[in-house]
């Protein structure tokens, strides 16, 4: 058989593309997920893992609506916070630590500040202080970035580690419980501090409601307010923002405060709605939500409404990861592999947004 390539040449043509439609964005996201699934399948194959039973397990996990919703709550809160900072081109990678600080605030309120207060005082107090503490925690890297031009990626990451060790210290030292039989953890928070759950599920619906309302509010803030406009201008062109009289420090500080605060609310929800105590292993509570939220924000194209859908999807991936670990003994690292791959293929696919690639077979003599 003669190969046509010896006679003709495939010519690739690249043109600039101007407008990109919503459908195209969705298509790209879909393609990225497929590529990531494909690569994961190849990895499974090379480790002699039964790909069919693995994918069957993933599919079954996606039917687990209530568990996925439980996972979605912290993801949504963290990711809409990240949407607002990322829009300002500020890279807060510290949602993980900010979430933990929110949980610390909630534990402090419920165990020490007002353990005997009734629910209608205790629960709002936990949410408000969780938001404030975590917001203030996020302000340190914000101040360093705004006034000293210090890279916020590194400082927020470092503060994640500090938050981890702070929780471990509190749970194993000054806050160690009186009825924990030597375990390094705090006492359970009193029952009136616990968030109500939808009957028969673990869905702590007050946090879910806050998350969805917050997503809508952030959308309105970004699209329809002067501050939202300032965020978008500063994020896309800081030079132009300066000439337009936009206060750079105000944008950085305020977006970081809101972003940290929302992650803090996620922490309050995890503590008061699900775990009821801090332990010396903070990873159990934060569960990489703060990092996974980075992917949610990117996949949602920095749109808080889209983040609702995407965080549900990512919640499903986390649930599937746990299911794979339990049923097939596959390391939960596979979630991180998958997340990294989606993100890598997504930003690679971005090039298709700006350039139109077409192939043409050209006959040569």
């Amino acid at each position: 058989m003669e190969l046509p390539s010896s006679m003709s040449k495939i010519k690739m043509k690249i043109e600039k593309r101007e407008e990109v439609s919503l459908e195209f964005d969705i298509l790209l996201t879909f393609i990225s997920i497929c590529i990531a699934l494909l690569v994961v399948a190849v990895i499974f194959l090379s480790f002699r893992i039964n790909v069919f039973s693995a994918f069957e397990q993933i599919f079954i996990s996606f039917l687990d609506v209530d568990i996925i919703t439980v996972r979605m709550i912290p993801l949504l809160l963290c990711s809409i916070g990240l949407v607002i900072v990322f829009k300002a081109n500020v890279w807060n990678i510290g949602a993980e630590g900010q979430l933990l600080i929110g949980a610390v605030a909630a534990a402090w309120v419920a165990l020490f500040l007002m353990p005997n207060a009734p629910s209608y005082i205790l629960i709002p107090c936990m949410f408000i202080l969780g938001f404030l503490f975590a917001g203030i925690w996020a302000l340190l890297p914000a101040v360093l970035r705004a006034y000293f031009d210090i890279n916020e990626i590194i400082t927020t990451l470092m503060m994640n580690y500090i938050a981890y060790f702070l929780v471990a210290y509190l749970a194993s030292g000054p806050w160690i419980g009186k009825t924990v039989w030597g375990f390094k953890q705090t006492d359970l928070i009193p029952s009136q501090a616990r968030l109500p759950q939808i009957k028969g599920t673990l869905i702590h619906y007050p946090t879910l409601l806050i998350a969805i309302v917050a997503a809508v509010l952030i959308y309105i803030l970004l699209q329809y307010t002067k501050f939202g406009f300032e965020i978008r201008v500063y994020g896309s062109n800081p030079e132009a923002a300066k000439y337009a009289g936009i206060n750079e420090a105000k944008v950085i500080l305020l977006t970081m405060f809101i972003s940290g605060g929302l992650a803090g609310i996620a922490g309050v929800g995890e503590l008061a709605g699900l775990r009821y105590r801090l332990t010396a292993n903070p990873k159990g509570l934060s569960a990489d939500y703060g990092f996974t939220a980075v992917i949610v924000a990117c996949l949602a194209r920095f749109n808080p409404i889209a983040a609702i859908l995407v965080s549900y999807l990512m919640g499903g991936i986390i649930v599937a990861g746990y299911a794979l670990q339990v049923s097939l003994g596959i390391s939960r690292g596979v979630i991180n592999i998958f997340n990294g791959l989606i993100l890598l293929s997504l930003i690679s696919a971005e090039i298709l947004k700006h350039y139109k690639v077409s192939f043409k077979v050209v006959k040569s003599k």
Partner: protein
Amino acid sequence: MSLESLISPLYEMVLLSTPIIFATIGEIYAERSGILNLGIEGIMSLGAAIAFVVTYVTGNIALGILAALIAGGLLALIHAFISITFNANQVISGLALAMLGLGLSSFIGENYVGLRLELLLQPIKIPLLSSIPLIGPVFFNQDILVYTAYILTVVLWFLLYKTKWGLYIRAVGENPYAADSMGINIYAVRYLCTVFGGILAGLGGAYITVAYMHTWREGITMGKGWVAVALVIFAFWDPLKGFLASLFFGGIEVAAIELYSLYGLNTHLTNMIPYAAIIVVMIFSASEIMKKRIGAPASLGKPFIREKRR
């Protein structure tokens, strides 16, 4: 305090710094060429896992280290491809790479958690140098990888500042459009530097498991990859200063351990110290950068798009 009592903590300092030295001087090369690789933490983690697994299975440490170098280079190649050929956002690509590397390492190392390697790299005494008081036993009674770190630091410093190749790299990082018109192949330089940085980060990761901890567990790198990215700034993108900055950080880690073992401070509190120190170090570098007006390579993190040339 006698000199002898200082030897052991300072010796430990060199051991703890070595993986960071590799990662830092590697990242300096990537950033000098204009590519910000935030995936170092993932690359180190993968290097650590692969080096451990391969060494454990084959019993050959050289093979283990080789595997880590290859894995590190390949992972960095992904970042290079996406950020150089596809002009994608380097911050997102780097973060994705970190996740991918961390995920792969826990996936690969899963069945090897808690196993132990014997001491495979014996310390080698350098004649004459090792008999210098204090300095000798601290710096010149180490294993071969530590000496590799010394030599690499000097060679990379020389290459960057005293040779034509170094000039090309710096030109590409400062002004790729001018470098392009001088006939330098921007893509080749950036690919080489990024992949080289990945190889060194893989080596740094390998050092943690096969030469220092002799074991593997998830999260064994403890953020050392992120620390390296911070130290690059503290070192003002100079390999020699990168070496010293890494030693300094190793010193802080040792001091934190000593605070715990000597004064009984809560271990979780002392564990915070190195990370808090990085924030302090960042503040210090920022004020130096403002004062001396030296800064990051001007094109760091910016894609090179030839049609944009002005």
